[in-house]
C-alpha cells in the first residue's frame, strides 16, 4: 500500500516555536475545528538499518521508517555483500551494527520519517503524530517540522473534515533529548497517548524513560533488540502497571492458535495435564519469541519454574506441574539459510504428553515456511501424533501497530502480562545458573 504523505509541505520551525504554532493551527473561530478527538501517537523511529542502507546506496528510496519489502530485500542483499552469515535475520540489529562500521556516503536520500504515514494508521485519524527521528549523524542539529493533515473525505460524507497534525523532530539523538522537555506541551492530556518504540529496547534508555511515562500506552517490539534487555524492560513496564503491547507477542498469534487447536478435541484436553517435555526451535539466538511462547504454555498450564540452564545452542528449563511431576522445556537456537525478517522467529514446537494409563501423545507444530524434520525425529511414529502446520503471520509491522491502536486498551493484556513475567524469570534463571 502506498503511504499517504502530508498534503501540505511541512513547516520547519525552531522547537520552541512549535507549541504556539500547533495552537494557531487549530484556532479558526467559527469553524469549529479542534482536530480529530482520537489519540496522540509518539513514535521513536530510529530506522538505523534503513538509514545505513540508504547512506551506502543499497536502498534506492527515501527513508520512511516503514517495514517495506524493498527494505527487507535490500537488507538481504547487504547480508551477502558484507559477508555476514546467511542465518542473519534481515531486520536484526546485527546487520545495522555491521553497516554502521562501514564508511561511505554513496547514497543521497530524502528522509520522510514522520511525514509518510501508512494508510492503515492514517485511517485511524490520529489527532497528532509526533515522530522522533534520530539521524545516524549524531551531531546533526535538530529540525522541527510541522504540518496539518486532513484525510480526504470519503463517499461525500457530510460529517466534516477530520484533521490532525504531524510533528517531526529530526536530528542527532542528543539534540532530540535536549528538547524532550517540550513534549508534554504537545500531548493533549484529554486524549489517550501511545508511545511506539520502534527501536531496540535497551538502546537510548534515557530517551525511552522520558518518552514512556507511566500514563502513556507503550508499544514495543521485543524482536528488535537483544533478548535480555528486551524482555527485562517489557516485564518491568508491565509490573509497573503500564499498558504495554509487544508486536512480537502478536507475531506468536498463529503459533498459539495452532497449539490450542491441537488440544481442542475433548479427548485430547486431558493430555495437557500430563505434558512431560516441550521442545521449541527458534531461528538464531534472539530468544524473545521462543521464551514468550514457552512462558505462555507454562503459565496456561500452571507450571512453576524450578531451574534454567544454558547449554551450547540451547536453554533448558525445568518446570513443576500442579501434580508435582517435572516437565523439561528445551529452547534450541537453529541456524537457517533464509531467515524470516525478524530475528528469533519460531521454527517448530514439539510437546510430548505421557498420560499415566494411556498412549503417549505427541503434538508437533511446524512453521509453514520451514518444516521441522528435527522435531519429527525421535520415534514419534510410535506415539499418538497430532501435527499442525502453522501459517505465516500476515501483515506488516504497521498493520500490527494499527491493530493495537484501533482497539486501544489502557491496561496490558493479562495473558501477555503473565507470560512476560515468567519469560523474564526464565531468563533470570539461566543467567543465575551461569554465575
Amino acid at each position, binding site marked *: 500500500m502506498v503511504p499517504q504523505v502530508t498534503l501540505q509541505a511541512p513547516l520547519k520551525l525552531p522547537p520552541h516555536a512549535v507549541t504556539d504554532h500547533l495552537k494557531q493551527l487549530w484556532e479558526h473561530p467559527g469553524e469549529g475545528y479542534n482536530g480529530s478527538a482520537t489519540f496522540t501517537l509518539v513514535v521513536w523511529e530510529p530506522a538505523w538499518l534503513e538509514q545505513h542502507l540508504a547512506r551506502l546506496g543499497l536502498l534506492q528510496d527515501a527513508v520512511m521508517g516503514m517495514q517495506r519489502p524493498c527494505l527487507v530485500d535490500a537488507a538481504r542483499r547487504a547480508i551477502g555483500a558484507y559477508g555476514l552469515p546467511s542465518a542473519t535475520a534481515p531486520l536484526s540489529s546485527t546487520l545495522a551494527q555491521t553497516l554502521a562500521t562501514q564508511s561511505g556516503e554513496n547514497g543521497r536520500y530524502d528522509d520522510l520519517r514522520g511525514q509518510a504515514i501508512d494508510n492503515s494508521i492514517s485511517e485511524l485519524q490520529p489527532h497528532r503524530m509526533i515522530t522522533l527521528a534520530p539521524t545516524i549523524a549524531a551531531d546533526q542539529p535538530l529540525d522541527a517540522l510541522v504540518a496539518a493533515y486532513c484525510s480526504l473525505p470519503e463517499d461525500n460524507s457530510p460529517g466534516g473534515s477530520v484533521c490532525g497534525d504531524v510533528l517531526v523532530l529530526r536530528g542527532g539523538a542528543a539534540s532530540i533529548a535536549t528538547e524532550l522537555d517540550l513534549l508534554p506541551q504537545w500531548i493533549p492530556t484529554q486524549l489517550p497517548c501511545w508511545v511506539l518504540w520502534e527501536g531496540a529496547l535497551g538502546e537510548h534508555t534515557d530517551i525511552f524513560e522520558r518518552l514512556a511515562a507511566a500514563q502513556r500506552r507503550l508499544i514495543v517490539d521485543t524482536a528488535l533488540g537483544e533478548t535480555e534487555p528486551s524482555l527485562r524492560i517489557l516485564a518491568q513496564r508491565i509490573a509497573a502497571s503500564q499498558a504495554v503491547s509487544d508486536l512480537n507477542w502478536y507475531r506468536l498469534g498463529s503459533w498459539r492458535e495452532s497449539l490450542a487447536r491441537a488440544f481442542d478435541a475433548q479427548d485430547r484436553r486431558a493430555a495437557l495435564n500430563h505434558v512431560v517435555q516441550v521442545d521449541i526451535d527458534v531461528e538464531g539466538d534472539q530468544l524473545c519469541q521462543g521464551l514468550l511462547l514457552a512462558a505462555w504454555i507454562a503459565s496456561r498450564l*500452571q507450571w512453576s519454574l524450578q531451574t534454567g540452564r544454558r547449554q551450547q545452542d540451547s536453554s533448558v528449563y525445568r518446570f513443576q506441574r500442579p501434580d508435582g511431576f517435572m516437565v523439561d522445556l528445551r529452547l534450541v537456537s537453529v541456524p537457517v539459510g533464509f531467515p524470516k525478517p525478524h530475528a528469533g522467529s519460531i521454527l517448530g514446537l514439539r510437546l510430548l504428553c505421557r498420560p499415566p494409563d494411556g498412549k503417549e501423545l505427541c503434538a508437533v507444530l511446524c512453521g509453514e515456511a520451514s518444516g521441522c524434520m528435527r522435531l519429527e525425529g525421535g520415534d514419534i511414529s510410535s506415539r499418538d501424533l497430532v501435527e499442525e502446520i502453522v501459517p505465516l503471520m500476515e501483515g506488516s509491522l504497521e498493520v500490527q501497530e494499527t491493530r493495537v491502536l484501533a482497539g486501544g486498551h489502557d491496561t496490558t493484556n493479562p495473558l501477555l502480562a503473565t507470560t512476560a513475567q515468567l519469560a523474564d524469570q526464565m531468563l533470570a534463571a539461566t543467567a543465575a545458573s551461569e554465575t
Partner: protein
Amino acid sequence: MAATLTNPLRVGLRQERVIPPQCLIIFGASGDLTHRKLIPALFELFLQRRLSSEFAVLGCARRPWSDEVFRQTMAERLQPTVSANPQAWEQFSQGLFYEPVDLQQPEHLARLAQRLEQVDRQRATRGERTFYLSVSPAFYGSGARALAGAGLLADRQRSRLVIEKPFGTDYASAQQLNRVVKSCGQENQLFRIDHYLGKETVQNIMVLRFANSIFEPLWNRNHISSVQITAAETVGVEQRASYYEKSGALKDMVQNHLTQMLALTAMEPPGRFEPESIRNEKAKVLQAAHLASPEQPWTCCVRGQYGSGGTAEHPLASYRHEPGVDPDSITETYVAVKLFIDNWRWQGVPFYLRTGKHLAKRLSEVALTFRDAPVRLFDAAAGGVSANQFVIRIQPDEGATFRFEVKAPGSGMRSRPISMDFSYDESFGEPSDEGYVRLLADAMLGDPTLFTRSDEVEAAWRLYTPILEGLKQSPDKFPAHPYEAGTWGPAESDELLARDGLLWRRP
C-alpha cells in the same frame, strides 16, 4: 485425572476483532432487553478485552435516572456476574452514562446531542456512535426520524443505527418502515437485528457449505429430495402474551428466524465473503422462494395452538388459559409451511418449515434429506432403507450429523443407518458467544454481514403475504388446530408431509 472441561490454551485467543473506540447509545435503556441482553453482552466483550478502553454506553429512556442510578441498576440486575468480577465491573461501569430522553421531544434530542459531545470528550470515543433502538416497534420510524432530524445520523461513516425485530408487521408496513429509515441514513448505517444470525451454528451453515468442497456438489435438486427446518420450543408463551397475541408463531419466528435459516441453507455461493455479496445472494434466494400453493395458501400452511398437557406432576396450561391471553384466541402457537424455490438449484425440492411452543423438545435444526440410491441392492436390517440425511443442529448440542447406511454385522448383507457426528462441545475448547455478543460487536464494528438488508426483509414478508392476507380475508380456512402441549404439534401438520410421502423428523 479427570478430563479438563475447557482447553486452557484457548483462553484469551479470541481477540482478533477489537471494537474501536465509540459510544453505544441505547434507547429504551430502562427496559428488559438492556439488562437481560445488551449490557451483559457488552460486559462479556469487555471481559474478553474486545472493547477498547475508550468506550462509553449512554443509556436513554424517559425515566429521570442519573448516571449513578443507571450504573447501580445495571449492577443489581447483572448479578451474580458482577459479584464474580467486581474489579472488571468497576472499570466497565465507569463507561456507563445515562440521559433522560423522550425521542418525541426535539429539545431532548438537542440535549442528547450536547451530552454526546461531552461523552465523546470525556471518553475519547472519537465521534463514533452506534444508536440502538430498543424501544417499542411502533417507535422505530419516529425514533429514526428524530435522530436524523437532530443530525445524529449525518456522519455516514461514524454513525450507525441498530433496529430490533420485528421489522414491520407485514409486507406493506415493512416497506413503509424501510422508506422511513432509509430516508434517515444510508443502508450501510442500518443494522436490522435478527438474533438467530448471531448464533455460531447458523453462521456455520455458510462455512460448512462454502469452505468444504464435499458438500456443495451435492447441495442441489439432483441429490436432495427435501429440506426440513425446525425451531421447536418447550416453553409456552410465558410473559409475552400481549406481544404474542398480535404476532403469533408466523410473525414471531417464521418470517424472520426460520426464513433466515432458509436463506443461508439455499443461497448460492457468494463471489466473495463480503457483506453485500452475501446479502445479495440471500435476497435473491428469498425472492425466488414462494409458498407451495400461493393461490391456496391454506393447503401448504398448518396452524396450531397448544392445549393443555404435561403430566399430573407438571401440568401445562393451554394457550387460552395463559395469563394475558384472550380465552377465545385464535393466535397460532405452531405453524408449518411448505415452500419451493424457483431456481436451477432447488426447482421441485420442497422446503418444510415448522416452529411451535410447548413442543416435545427444544431444538433448532436444518435437515437435508438426500435422494434414495437409484438401485436398491441390499435389504435393510429394520425393514426399510433410510434416506441419507445431513442435519445441522443449531441448538442445543450444536453440531452436525451425517446419517448413512452401512453393512449390519452378521453373515448377511443387510444395511442399517449409522450417524457420523460433529459436536461443537466435543471439538472446540471454548463455549460459543451468546448471539447478542456477536451481533453487538459486529454492529459496532460496522460489519453488516449478519444483519438483514431492506430487500431481504421485504422479500421475507412478501413470501408469507398470501397467508397473512388469507388470514384476514378467510380466517376459517386457517384454523388453529389444537395440539397437546408437550407433543410435536397437530396431526394436520403430519398430514402436510404425509401427502408427499414424508415424515417430520422427531429427533
